[in-house]
């Protein structure tokens, strides 16, 4: 049985429906463009935003006087000399408007009795700057609020369960996308005057991650194959205190962050001793160590044989008291009890977990890639966060970049004449053809995650990275002759095949960039090159040239005097 290809047309195609994609669709529609908003899963539920239980940084000045320049200074310092200062400035300068816009849409930011929006002081910030929605509801509230606005916007057509397999080019410019409907396997071509990639990060490449199954770097591989450049791919942020043990279901593994904002908590080694001071970060009940430093400290304790039984550190709130815990986290305490966790009598075990990726697609200040009419927004964009992202900047970045990319894409679509035809792209053949491939892509993905965790994690060596690249090459064999089985309703093994194809390509860019950068900086730590090298204050780019990945270099944009270059 062959399924007929369906073709749709739109001014702006937005791929991905986290905060960046929803914002881009709203912005494009608000300046008059017709929009197709596509997601491989449920609209507004599929990316990292809905899982973010933490905080959003913006210089609102509600708790203390603040200015976006202070936020920018903290962002650049956290970025260890590698932020694109123009992109970072956009996030910090426009962040407050986005936070207040969401407030006007009743997102429900936590407030003080006097009506001011509460702002917590997160690690790396010089003052309280991070807003949130109680209890652990920041991401779901943001996603729900944006989704409600999108639904009210008649120019936006929402299509869920639509997996985009490739972008379509005409004379080197993006003119559309090809994919398939998961519900029935039908090939779909979308002709678009401009495209916004808002597909999120790539942390699914790792075994222990806080990602959704949709975050295997879809946008990175789509952009690469379309001719765009990626940048800073070696910088994967590990969130230091991801939940490790006992087994916790029904909660995001990064949930201990808000606990630490509100209650401090004590990070202990196997001997029950606080150790952050040994690494130059005196915590004294305050939660202030930057993420790269805390990850380094915890894994160093584990390496020295002082880790917790499951291979991490203990996090204890035993000194806090049941009443204070209940006041701060209400129903969350019951959800923990369902998992057999009583914080008044026991510590939990935590360890670094792949959480965010600083690198991504290289864009200009209008968020356009080097492929004409192809824009990007949110985590998939490189540059704003340098070598290490400041806490709270991810959703701010998604909102600011989403709006800007959506508006730019709409303006481009408005200024274009007739839309070039997308024709019948090569991807449609791949999507419609049955194969007898015997490879198990789900198993190969698990193997890839093990390789990346073992050799391309927070600590790297030349030998390990070489092994990783060999293993990635070997795993390409699992791709066989094409997606296994026949197209049809929810053919998940075929979806796995497309995921594996993209993940192998993106994993290779991370390992290649990590091997080439012979220094340690931010989230990239080389055991064989432990010092930060001033000569490496530059970006590495990577692109597909004639089917091969080629590394390049680019200077850091912006105001170096403001950037903290200390490793």
């Amino acid at each position, binding site marked *: 049985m062959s399924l007929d*290809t*369906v*073709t*749709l*047309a*739109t001014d702006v195609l937005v791929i991905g429906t986290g905060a960046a994609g929803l914002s881009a669709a709203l912005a494009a529609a608000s300046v008059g463009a017709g929009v*197709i908003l596509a997601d491989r*899963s*449920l*609209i507004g*539920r*599929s990316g990292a935003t*809905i*899982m973010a239980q933490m905080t959003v940084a913006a210089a609102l000045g509600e708790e203390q006087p603040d200015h976006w320049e202070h936020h920018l200074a903290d962002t650049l310092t956290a970025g260890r000399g590698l932020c694109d200062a123009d992109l970072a400035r956009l996030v910090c300068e426009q962040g407050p408007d986005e936070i207040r816009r969401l407030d006007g849409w009743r997102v429900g930011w936590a407030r003080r009795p006097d009506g001011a929006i509460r702002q917590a002081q997160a690690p790396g910030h010089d003052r309280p700057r991070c807003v949130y929605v109680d209890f652990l509801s920041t*991401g*779901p509230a943001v996603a729900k609020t944006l989704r409600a606005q999108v639904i009210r916007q008649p120019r936006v*057509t*929402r*299509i*869920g*369960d*639509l997996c985009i397999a490739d972008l379509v080019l005409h004379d080197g410019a993006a003119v559309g996308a090809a994919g398939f*409907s998961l*519900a029935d396997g*039908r090939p779909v*071509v979308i*002709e678009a005057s401009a495209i916004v990639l808002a597909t999120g990060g790539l942390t699914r490449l790792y075994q222990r991650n806080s990602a*959704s*199954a*949709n975050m295997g770097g879809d946008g990175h591989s789509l952009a690469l194959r379309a001719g765009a450049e990626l940048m800073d791919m070696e910088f994967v942020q590990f969130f230091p205190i991801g939940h490790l043990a*006992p*087994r*916790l*279901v*029904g*909660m*995001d*593994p990064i949930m201990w962050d808000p606990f630490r904002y509100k209650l401090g908590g004590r990070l202990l080694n196997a001997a029950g001793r606080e150790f952050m001071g040994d690494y130059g970060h005196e915590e004294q009940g305050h939660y202030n160590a930057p993420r790269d430093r805390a990850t380094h400290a915890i894994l160093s304790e584990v390496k020295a044989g002082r880790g917790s039984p499951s291979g991490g550190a203990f996090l204890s709130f035993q000194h806090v008291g049941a009443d204070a815990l209940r006041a701060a986290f209400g129903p969350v305490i019951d959800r923990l009890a369902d*998992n*057999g966790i009583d914080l008044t009598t026991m510590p939990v075990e935590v360890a670094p977990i792949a959480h965010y990726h600083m690198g991504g697609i290289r864009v200009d200040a209008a968020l356009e890639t080097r492929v004409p009419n192809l824009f990007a927004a949110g985590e998939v964009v490189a540059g704003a966060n340098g070598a290490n992202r400041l806490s709270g900047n991810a959703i701010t970045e998604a909102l600011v970049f989403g709006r800007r990319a959506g508006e730019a894409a709409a303006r481009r679509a408005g200024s274009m004449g007739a839309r*070039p*035809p*997308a*024709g*019948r792209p090569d991807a449609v053949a791949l999507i419609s053809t049955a194969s007898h491939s015997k490879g*198990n*892509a*789900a*198993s190969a*993905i*698990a193997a890839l995650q093990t390789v990346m965790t073992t050799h391309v994690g927070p600590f790297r060596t030349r030998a390990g990275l070489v092994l990783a690249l060999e293993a990635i090459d070997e795993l390409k064999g699992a791709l066989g002759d094409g997606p*296994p*089985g026949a197209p*049809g*309703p*929810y*053919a*998940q*093994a075929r979806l*796995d095949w497309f995921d594996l194809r993209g993940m192998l390509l993106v994993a290779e860019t991370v390992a290649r960039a990590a091997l080439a950068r012979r220094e340690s900086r931010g989230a990239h730590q080389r055991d064989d090159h432990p010092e930060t090298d001033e000569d490496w204050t530059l970006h590495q780019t990577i692109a597909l040239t004639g089917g091969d990945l080629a590394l390049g270099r680019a200077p850091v944009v912006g105001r170096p005097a403001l950037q903290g270059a200390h490793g």
Partner: protein
Amino acid sequence: MTITAILIVRRGPGADAPSIRYVVPYTPGQSVLDGLRFVRQALDPTLSVRHSCISANTCKECMILVDGKVAYACTARLEPREMVLQPLPNKVHLRDLVTEIGPPDERLDHALKTLGCVPPRTPTR
């Protein structure tokens, strides 16, 4: 000796679809979704069970029948016994444990109705 759980899973499209028994390793605290993901990686990659967020219970995609009761596979606990897993009975069945759960106005057919299907054009060059 390894303790195991036995998942009896409805397969295939169609009302008369067969069920298949999968024996998976069990450790306390695991979820039914952990067991199903083990099946997909180690025993049978063709098993379809939709999920995005894996374990955070935010995507709400993994709702199925566990021993006849509606539950999220990511929060239902795996148990060292036979467990019967079936797709939701009140939704259109797509394959295995997957049903059509997207809102009707967020599906491809709705978009085709709203925007109209464009006749394919071939680049002239």
